Structures are given as C-alpha cells and as structure tokens.
C-alpha cells in the first residue's frame, strides 16, 4: 500500500510523517504537492501538521481551498482512509470533512507536551490494533487545539462511537487536569460518519521510536496498514 503525504506551503510535519512511515515502518510513501489533483496512486492520505499558508486568517481556512482538497474530498467519498494530524485536523474541519472546529487553547498559550490518549473506539480502521481503552503516549504541539462542536453534533459523536481518542491520565482516567487545551469532553481525535476519516491533534509521527520517549504512535499507522 502507498501513503500520500500532502504538503501545503507551511506544512512541517510532512517529513516526520515520511520518516515514521517509510524509515520506521518500511511503508511506501510519497509527498503530494498541494496543487496535485490526482490521488489515485495512494491508498491512504495524510494531512500533516504545520502552519499551512501561515495559518493566517484562521487555522486551515486557506488550505481548504487548495486544489488538493477537492481531490481529498473525492478520495473520502470513495471511502478511502484519510488521517489529519494537528493542522491537518484543522483543515479537515474547515473543509467540512469532519464536524466541529478547533479553537484557541483555553489558556491562550501554545502547548508542546506529552499527552496520554485513551482509545475510546478500537473498532475503527485507525485504532484496530489498539486494545480497548489502551492509553497511548503521544505529544501535542498546537495553539488551536480545543475541540468544539455544538451540542447536537457532540451528542451524535458520542452516541455513535466517533470519539476515537480522549486526553487522559497515564492511567487512563479522563480528568480535567489531563486536558491540555480545554477540548470538549477531552476530545483529542474524532472520525467521520463513514469511519474512514480521522482527525487528531496529537502527533503520532512524533512517537515513533523508544529513543524519542514513545513508539505508541506506530500503533495507529499499523492499524491503518492492517485495515486496508
């Protein structure tokens, strides 16, 4: 299978995604320029983190109009997997491929730190290799990561098992203290209705080797590889 890693002007997680997929997991991966409109060579599309178009105006607001995003929407319609990480999650929300929005952190500061994610749903193609409730150690790095949706949307997400990950303590307890940005219901990642699009604020490509403090992010990639 082949991963396509989208590069917008201002994207910086592209290289880390490539490193973890190609160098660590031995997968076929390639960069996809934001002007590309043909995604047929790829089995999974990655929208990496960074500051696409400087995140001027609003995070992800300009990137959603990139030519590649029409192709990503088509890709999604075919039910193929798309994963948006950090800025990629923001872009997916702006493009309405995922519901809700990522607002400024409640403390109004950038945060780069380890977080512990409780796997809420291990039957998605992104989490199939996780045990139910497994806690993954994966870092965040963002200023706008506070997940927000209206009450109806939130209820729908919760009722249909579409919350993939929640910020938790290392022991897996979902507490206010474990929430690094004020996200509603400690939400760190969600999937779309069809279950083929995942958006998450933490960076699995950063926890790809023990020497970096954690290799838990690989479980997400391995789930995708096994799921296709």
């Amino acid at each position, binding site marked *: 299978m082949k991963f396509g890693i989208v590069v917008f*002007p*201002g994207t*910086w*997680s592209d*290289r*880390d995604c490539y*490193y*973890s997929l190609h*160098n660590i997991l031995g997968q076929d991966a390639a960069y996809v320029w934001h002007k590309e409109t043909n995604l047929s060579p790829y089995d999974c599309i990655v929208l990496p983190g*960074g*500051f696409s*178009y*400087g*995140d*001027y105006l609003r995070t992800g607001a300009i990137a959603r109009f990139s030519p590649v995003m029409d192709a990503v929407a088509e890709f999604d319609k075919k039910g193929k997997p798309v994963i948006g990480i950090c800025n990629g999650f923001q872009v997916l929300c702006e493009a309405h491929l995922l519901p809700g929005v990522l607002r400024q952190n409640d403390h109004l*500061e*950038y*945060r*780069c*730190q380890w977080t512990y994610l409780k796997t809420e749903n291990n039957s998605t193609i992104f989490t199939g290799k996780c045990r139910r409730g497994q806690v993954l150690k994966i*870092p965040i*790095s963002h*200023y706008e990561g506070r997940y927000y949706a209206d009450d109806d949307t939130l209820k729908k997400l919760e009722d249909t098992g579409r919350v993939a990950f929640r910020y938790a303590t290392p022991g897996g307890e979902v507490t206010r203290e474990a929430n690094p940005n004020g996200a509603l219901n400690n939400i760190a990642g969600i999937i779309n209705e069809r279950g083929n699009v995942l958006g998450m604020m933490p*960076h699995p*490509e*950063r926890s*790809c*080797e023990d*020497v*970096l*403090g954690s290799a838990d992010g690989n479980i997400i990639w391995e789930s995708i590889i096994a799921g296709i």
Partner: protein
Amino acid sequence: MPVSKETLDEIALSQREYDLIVEKLGREPTPVELGMFGSLWSEHCGYKYSKALLRMFPVTGKHVLVKPGEENAGIIDIGDGQVIGFKMESHNHPSYIEPYQGAATGVGGIVRDIFTMGLRPIALMNSLRFGPLSEPHNRYLFGGVVGGIAGYGNCLGIADVGGEIYFDQCYTGNPLVNALCLGIGRADNLIKARASGEGNLIMLVGADTGRDGLHGASGLASRTFEEVRELRSAVQVGNPFMEKLLIEACLELAGTDWIVGMQDCGAAGLTSAIIEAADKGNSGIDIDVSKVPRREKGMTPYEVMISESQERMIVIAKKGYENKVKALFDRWELHSDIIGRVTADGIAIVRDGGKVVVNAPVKILNTPPVYRLRPQRPGWLDEIQRLDLNKIKDIAPKKTGEMLLKLLASPNICSKHAVYRQYDHQVGDNTVVLPGSDAAVLRIQETSKAFSMVTDGNGRYCYVNPFIGGVIAVAEAARNTACSGARPMAITNCLNFGNPEKNDVYFQLQECIKGMTQACKKLKIPVISGNVSLYNETRDVAVFPTPVVGMVGLIKDVKHHCSSGFKQEGDIVFLIGEPANGESLGSSEYLEMAHGMIKGTQHIDIEKERRVQTCVIKAIERGLLNSAHDCSDGGLAVALAESCILGDTGFTGKIEVKGRLDAALFGEAQSRIVVSTCPKAAYRLETLALKHNVPLARMGVTGGAQFTIKGYIDLPVSRLHYAWWNGLLNY
C-alpha cells in the same frame, strides 16, 4: 561638501571615520555610499572595537571545517560525510523596543544564517535575561519575547530545545535576547556566501523591501539607548510563513548546481549581503535598485540599500540558470528578481535606473577600521571582589530546609517549563532529552549518533570578575555537555557588554575574552562562530558583562546518553568533585538571596575541571551512570533536589561539612557533578575516578518520597517539586 554632525550621528560614524572614508576614496562619499559605510563600519557588522580581541579565540581543531567569519556560521565535521553548523546571535535592542517582533526576527535571522549555507536548521535555543518580573514593564518584555520566539519559531518546524533564562535588576533597561540555531547537512553540499564569476546574476528572493529596520545595524545595535520611541522604525516585522517557504526553497536550490552562492539579508540588509558576498568572492557588483520590489512607494535608493526588511535572500545564479532558479522559487510562490550581476573589477556600482548612486571599491567599503582601546580596570572591582566571610552569619541548621525551598522557587533556579512548553521542542523526530535537563540531546537520524546542545553564561560571576567569569562560562557549558554524555565539539558565543568606548567596559570585554580563551584552549574546544552585542546600556547604566556560550557536543552512541534526573530507587549517589568551602559563596544565588549581596569571586582550576569532565563522559560511555547533574546555581543541595524532582524519587544521605554549613549546602564551587549509579556499577565508577585523579564522595541512596540530608533537611519531594515547578508562575 562637509558633512554635518547630525548626519554622522544618524549613521553612528565619527568625524575621523568620515575623514578616513574621504581619504580612501579620494573624494567625498555620495549620500548612499555614506549610508553603506555607516552600516558596514558599524560595530554590529564590522566588529571594529571587538575584532582585535576576538582574534585571541582558538578557532582551529580537527573537526572544524568552517572557521568564524568565513561563512554565515561555523561548521564542524561529525563524520560519515555529515556536518553540523551553528551560530548564536543577539537581538537585544530590537527586543527592548518591540519585544514580540524583536525576538521573532532574532529567530528568523539566525535561522537564515544556517540554511543559507545549505544546512537544514533542526534545533534552536535561546538565552534570555530580564529585569525582575515584579516590575510590570519587565513582565511585558518577558511575555513579548517568549511569545515572539514561540510565534515565529513554532511556525518554522524547527525544534526549540530550550536554553536558559535569568533575571537581574541590571537587565531592566536592556534585556538580552540571544538565539542559537543549529543545522545539519552534507559536507559535499555546502553553499558559500560569495559572489563570484563575472556575469553571474544577483537575484533578490523572498519578501518585498520596505522601510522597516532602517539603521538597525548602525543606529540600534551600535549605540546606547537615549530615547527609544524614535527608533521604533528601526525594528523589523517578521513573517515566519515566508521564512518557512524560503527554508524549503533554498534547501531545494542548494541541491542543484545552478548557483555559486547564497547570502541572507540580515543586519544592514542588501548592503551587507551584497558587499560581503562580493568581498569574499573578490569580485565587484553592478546592481540597479529600481529592480528591487518595494513594499511602499517613494523609497529612495538610500533606504532600499539599508532597509532590514526580513525574509530576503541574495542568490548568485550561474549565468544561463536564472530561469531555472526563478521557476523553483515560483513553485514555492516566492518572488525572485534579477537586480544585477557580478563584475570582475572589484567595484561596487549601485544604480537607480540610469543614475549611478554608488561607485566605490568593495574592499574599501568592507574594511572598517579596527580599534584597540586602552582597557582600564574599574576601581570598584576591588570592593566587590572582597567578601569578608567573618561578617556573614552562617545558616542555622534548622533553617536549611526553608532556604532550600526558597532557592528552588527563586526565578533563576526554578523550572522554566512555563516557557519551554510554549516552544515546539519535538518537531523533527530528533529530540531525545527535552528542555529542562543540563543539556538537550538530539539524535542524528539514520546513525547511532546524537549531539548535545547547551547555552550558559553567568553575568554575575563576570561582573565581579570578568576573567574568571569568562573561564566559568566555557567550563560550565562543557560540564553540562559532559553530563549528557557528549564530548564537546565546538562553541559559539554571544558577548553582551556595555559601551566598548568606555575604558572600563573595554576592560571587562578583554578580560572576559581572555578567560574564555584560556578555558577553550585547556579544554581543547574551538570557537567556530559568534556575535558581539555591545552598547547594552540605557541611560549610562551597563548590563552585567554577559558572555553566553553555546556548546555542541557529540555522543557516539545515543544509547549512552544521560540526563539529570535520578532514574530508579536504590541507586547510589556520588559527588564527583570536592566539598565546597566558604569562598564558593562568592556571587552565589544564596548570597544574594540570604544576604542581599553580589560580592566575592568564584574560583576554578581548569585542569581539575577537565579531569572531572573526562571522568563523567567515560563513565556515561561505559554505561555506569544513570544520571549526572552539574552543581551550579544554588550549589549541591539544589543539584540533589533537582535530580530528585526530575526523577520523581527521594534521596537519603549525608553531606560533608568542612567549615561553613551554608557553603557546604549552597556554595557554588566549580567542577562538581552529582551522579547516580546502580550498586553493581559503583565499584567500576570508583576505579574510574581513581584513574582520573578525581575526588569521589558517596553521598547516599535514591528512593522513597522524602528528601533527607541527615541532620539538616527532611522534606517530601512533592514539596520540593511544588516550590520548583511553580516558581516562575508565582514570580
């Protein structure tokens, strides 16, 4: 036409310097030429007061590929065809006037120095000094600077792995904001900052040119502050998104054979970029400023030539390849315009359409005078170097716990996580030891190697004794490097001093450089790059002489790296080095906190220092140590407490008191490292210490939840942690 004093003041040239220009040119300079001289002959670009002193530094070594001044940053060879380049630079004055943009563009500038050479920037560090945060204006500066570093740096995708932050009253009118950037690349792919080859094309790439940053180099960085408001236009405004595009585009370009050189527009903008590149290439240049894209209307050639608008690069394209270069930048949605060409005659010609506004030899423009002033030891040094211990009451045993908590919570010692967590320190998939340990450690992908990074510089020690302070700045950086298990490779530095035209400031500068030189030579660590920031004064009050040393070390096998927190229960804790005597209280954190004085000189035996460091490095390389932490601010008790806090484990042991109790606990005697080892390895550590002729004292064991120094301190680690963790937040 005689020149007015006002005109010369504006560009910070003296009448004698003007006369020298007239003599060298054989005529009066044109207005644009004069502006260019002002910039190039400023201290900031020309190092006219510091150059003679900087020549003392050792600059060669078996790993050194590029020495200071040869390119934008120094470069070392780390083997396997890979190289590392790094440099530190100050942005003190802009950060005082406009803290967010000043600090942001400081990051932008140092990053450009690195990728200009074809190296991918992968790590940043910052060394910051502020006045006490109890004063609202200092708090404003602090918040702005940290925000600017985070706002700009995070956007670039370069890991900011920390650095250091200190507070002292002397920095109130003049904060220090030093930024270090490190890049990695291949030895066979380096780009030079030179314009050569007659007919090759000079292209200006990136942002448009505006009126921001006029007289940044000559006016701002080379003078003291009188009235800051009028200088606001001398501060530039950064666009990190543009910088990120420039990084990617320029690194792509560095992989082609379409160019002969690349240079960033930093201080003094186009003037220094073009003239320095032409000088290095022994060439001339012929450019037309009317081809320079402008941000605003009505800019004069003078303004275009000295504007410090950010995110601009000069690319010297091989003749015939200019369209390929342009296409590459177009793809990254960046402007690139041909503004002139390289000539062979060594003359700098600047045109404004049909009119020649500059016609002067490159060598004359780029050869500022070098001054050697008469240093004078200030009389007040005698007073502050004398510390009469008889007049200072020793601490009562029952007060020691309280003092430890106070020191841990003090702004210079407490955790700086509230700052570092705002910096993206993990992007790049390289960061092994995060900010907060003695040194940051980053691994080198696709090898087993890693490197350490650290910045250090104690202004207080230098204020009391500039020579010893200089020695310690280098020694402490090396000690922190050793504590990570790395062998020091090279240093960069930022020398933050007052007005060098004052004899006593010049004395401080000279003595400090002498001290640093001695330490570098004894420890065999070359200086590969650096920057001098002088005129750090406001209303005649100079900052402490503050040399900041940035050091990079190499770890052969990342498996054998080390950090400062204890790792497990039941480990044995040793002190490598000797117990502290009363003199170690000199200029210490404790002395200021408990007795309100900055007095007394520290001592260091650099030979002993070298043995201690070698012993620790070897012990880590052999896998004998589980932690290593340097005793610095706050002394042995603070070092032990920090290892407990960072490792989330207790300690029970004893401390040897010879003479004063306060010195034994809180004295800052040099050349000491607290290490922990599992009991099985203890014997091998003792043997190693003996072999290296290094004192080793068993202090106690790790474990439990209590921090106990028998007879004196008995506190839960959670209380230590609380004090330390919240120190900055409660400051």
